[in-house]
């Protein structure tokens, strides 16, 4: 019996769906086309096979996901991952937080930032720029979202330009989307 993971971790768990995934063997042409691109170019997972129930949505969603996280210019890759983790922390999506915290760690070669975020959340003791990004991500992830002009000014004061602020917004909001799929349609389990 596999154990459900309820605490934040950078060890990526297995995702167990609550909805029956589409069977790749019997998938329609439209479903196969939608599955031809995957988020972050990973293998075809149970997660994308669950989303393949709605190929029309998936075929727009996957290139949007990859564009927001990987397109050139604007905000750094690591800081996009930090926005993703901020949303996943608020929404308590353990799976998304694990995947994107570990990507952050791979890029920055520094595990202390994510350790602090998982321990203290928005109160984490980070450098000023990372702290501002984290706080912005947390405020944007509330319901209703809490971003006002003062939040934009706070990011600008720390040197983020408007392109970076837009990219941070897209990455954070994208995870408001991803968390609402991953954390409701399935759950993270330890498959050891």
């Amino acid at each position, binding site marked *: 019996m596999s154990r459900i993971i309820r605490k934040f971790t950078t060890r990526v768990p297995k995702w167990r769906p609550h909805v029956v995934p589409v069977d790749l063997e019997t998938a329609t042409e439209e479903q196969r086309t939608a599955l031809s691109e995957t988020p972050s170019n990973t293998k075809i997972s149970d997660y994308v096979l669950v989303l393949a*129930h709605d190929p*029309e*949505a998936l075929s727009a969603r996957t290139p*949007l996901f990859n564009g927001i996280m990987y*397109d050139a210019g604007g905000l750094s890759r690591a800081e996009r991952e930090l926005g993703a983790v901020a949303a996943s922390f608020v929404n308590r999506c353990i799976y998304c937080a694990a995947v994107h915290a570990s990507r952050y760690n791979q890029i920055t070669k520094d595990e202390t930032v994510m350790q602090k975020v998982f321990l203290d959340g928005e109160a984490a003791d980070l450098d000023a720029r990372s702290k501002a990004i984290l706080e912005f991500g947390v405020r944007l992830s509330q*319901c209703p*979202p809490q*971003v006002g002009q003062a939040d*934009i000014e706070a990011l600008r004061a720390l040197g983020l330009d*408007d392109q970076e602020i837009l990219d941070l917004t897209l990455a954070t909001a994208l995870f408001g989307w991803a968390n609402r799929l991953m954390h409701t349609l399935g759950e993270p389990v330890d498959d050891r």
Partner: protein
Amino acid sequence: MISHVLERTAGVPETGALAKVLKLRARLMDLTQASHDAALLPRVPGGLSLPERAVLAARMARICGDAALAAHYTELAGNAGDLLAVAEPGVGSEERRLAALLAYTDKVTLRPKDAVPEDIEMLRDAGLAEGDIVRLAGLVAFVNYQLRVANVLRAMGKSA
């Protein structure tokens, strides 16, 4: 002329600093619009009707205090009849299936962290097919994304 729902309802000016940074992400804004159309105006709606999608989206926009997106989604709902009542947050339904749609939409909009497997079981018990559960989850998740980007675009527009 701005044709995308997001930039239009967020009141993004057609020129200036904000328009310029959006231009670098024009492909992503096109894909955001495509995602809007797939969630709200799909070619294959399955078991989740277009008016149901629109009123649920209007309800989420109102929960988030976004009058412009609420107006857009209410307009999409058009002549939804009795269904229009549940576009107002807090209004429930006696009908089991609609009550389940509302319960899922409210919880996953307001408190996604509290999601449990029983939320999905509730939808299944109310008669939703597997594909329709995914369609509903996709709608709720997308609209919450759009509401957040709109929130920031408005704030950026004001402090340009």
